[in-house]
């Protein structure tokens, strides 16, 4: 860490991990209600539990992205942040909005569109938060060096803010509502968020492998190009059965099938860079998370996405546990794991330590990844059985659910394993760390840091 203002990232990472803990606890509760349906059913019904689980996820991922940007931009731009104070005010406002939303949900205050449940004033606060961020990093980049990584990151962050504006449009025609709802949800996770993901991964690769920036930057353009060329029209895979025209079955199937390409390219990129450099970075845990992220994103988004993306298959699997399986592994592999990677990489610098608690951190990697993989597997089996019974044989929904109860127990078990992994991760990151970084050795022995 070269720049004092990078320190604001520490607060962002702490806030993100706090909300992550909330997300997991509430997720465990949701999984428990699935198998013990009378649990809390009057006090906090399932719908409220679920919206806290998903909203906490999205908010902590965004806070993590902001933190990652505040960490890496000064180093890339070779200058201090325009205003660290503004960055902290921005975080305070965002965390306040998030907590206000959760408390509101418990008191039945929500707007009731999936993932966009926040009351309008909180949505407006999110826009203000995004503008504060964009203002701060844009001014930082104007006075500093501009790299491909910062450019792509900035485009991604602008995209996040711009597409979020569609959340304010809620027509009374349900089909229209749904069509534009995907402008936020799909164009985020299969569009602009991929730009953020790829640029953070590229930053980590430059720092940890020391491979020449020129090479990394060309890979980065290839990845984000593939992502947007396939992902924008790939939105069509949500326009099959919601009242939109039939041509989307062709466009959606073809382009979303191509969405596997950027994720595959990310795997090749990450492993090639490590293999090429032959250098061993001391932060082995950060390396594990970075490589693991590319692999899990490929499986969760790429393979599990492709599984149900072709229209004739999606006709049967649409809105079943297959979707839940994919949603979990994709969000975890791509966006949760890139956060764990940058946090694991940056924390030793932010705390002025040598890489610490590596073994514990790597244990948490295997527990979380193993748990999520098992959860995805059992939900996929549940989804296939559900699809057959309900969509092919036409059996009643509630009867089908009784048939697949066993898989919900296994999902809860998998969740407990994930939970143990989370505790280990948080302890390994924020817990006691010995071995201070000696003052005489510069913290940045470029290019591999």
């Amino acid at each position, binding site marked *: 860490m070269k720049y004092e203002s990078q320190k604001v990232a520490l607060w962002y990472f702490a806030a993100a991990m706090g909300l992550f803990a909330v997300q997991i606890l509430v997720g465990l509760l949701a999984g428990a209600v699935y198998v013990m349906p009378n649990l809390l059913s009057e006090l906090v019904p399932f719908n409220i539990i*679920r919206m806290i689980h998903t909203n906490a996820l999205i908010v902590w991922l965004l806070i993590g992205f902001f933190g990652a940007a505040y960490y890496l931009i000064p180093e890339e731009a070779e200058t201090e942040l325009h205003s660290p104070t503004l960055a902290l005010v921005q975080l305070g406002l965002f965390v306040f909005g998030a907590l206000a939303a959760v408390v509101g949900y418990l008191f039945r205050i929500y707007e*009731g569109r*999936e993932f966009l449940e926040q009351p309008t004033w909180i949505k407006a606060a999110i826009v203000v938060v995004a503008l504060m961020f964009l203002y701060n990093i844009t001014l930082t980049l104007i006075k500093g060096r501009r790299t491909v990584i910062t450019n792509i990151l900035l485009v991604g962050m602008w995209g996040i803010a711009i597409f979020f504006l569609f959340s304010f449009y809620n027509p009374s025609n349900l089909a229209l509502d749904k069509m534009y709802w995907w402008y936020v949800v799909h164009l985020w996770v299969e569009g602009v968020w991929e730009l953020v993901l790829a640029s953070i991964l590229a930053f980590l690769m430059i720092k940890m492998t020391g491979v020449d920036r020129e090479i990394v930057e060309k890979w980065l*353009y290839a990845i984000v190009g593939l992502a947007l060329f396939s992902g924008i029209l790939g939105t069509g895979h949500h326009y099959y059965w919601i009242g939109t025209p039939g041509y989307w*079955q062709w466009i959606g199937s073809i382009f979303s099938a191509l969405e596997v390409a950027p994720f595959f390219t990310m795997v090749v990129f990450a492993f090639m860079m490590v293999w090429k450099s032959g250098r061993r970075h001391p932060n082995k845990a950060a390396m594990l998370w970075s490589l693991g992220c590319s692999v899990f994103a490929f499986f969760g988004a790429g393979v599990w996405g492709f599984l149900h993306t072709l229209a004739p298959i999606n006709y049967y699997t649409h809105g079943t546990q297959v979707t839940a399986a994919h949603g979990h592994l994709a969000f975890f592999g791509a966006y949760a794991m890139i956060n764990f990677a940058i946090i694991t990489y940056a924390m030793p610098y932010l705390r002025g330590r040598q890489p610490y608690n590596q073994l514990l951190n790597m244990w948490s990697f295997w527990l979380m990844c193993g748990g999520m993989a098992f959860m995805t597997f059992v939900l996929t089996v549940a989804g296939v059985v559900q699809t057959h019974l309900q*969509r092919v044989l036409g059996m009643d929904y509630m009867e089908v659910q009784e048939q697949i109860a066993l898989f919900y127990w296994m999902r809860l078990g998998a969740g407990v394993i994930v939970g143990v992994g989370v505790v280990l991760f948080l302890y390994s990151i924020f817990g006691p760390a010995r071995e201070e970084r000696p003052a005489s050795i510069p913290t940045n022995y470029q290019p591999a840091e």
Partner: protein
Amino acid sequence: MTERFTKAAARNIFYGGSLFFFATFVALTALSHLYIVNTSTDKAGLNDAVARGKHVWEKNACINCHTILGEGAYFAPELGNVWKRYGGDKDHDGAVTALKGWMAAQPSGIQGRRQMPQFNLTEQEVEDLAAFLEWTSRINTQNWPPKLSG
């Protein structure tokens, strides 16, 4: 020099291509917008009751247990075609009465069965909800879902 050129080319392809695909996407959604408004949904039938019913649907966050047209949560049955499951396409008043009865009977309190909350809806709200669900059941969804079970 060639190195530089290649990177500039990569950049131009990225920005140019993305703009091209985005413009195509916007044009196609504009077409779809017109198709939805004029063809696949009932324009004349989209009255105040339907709009109010959609609001009741949202205010109570039904989507966080149920799916509607396959989107939402997977904890409770699909409701895009519940109007047809209730036989509303043949007996309108019967389906409204059935819906009123259902909403009033929640939560069932049965041990080991998933619970739906009591939303304390007014008579009017349930009727609006019925109007919304009826209107939704008539959206042209390319024959989805495959079975009445949703």
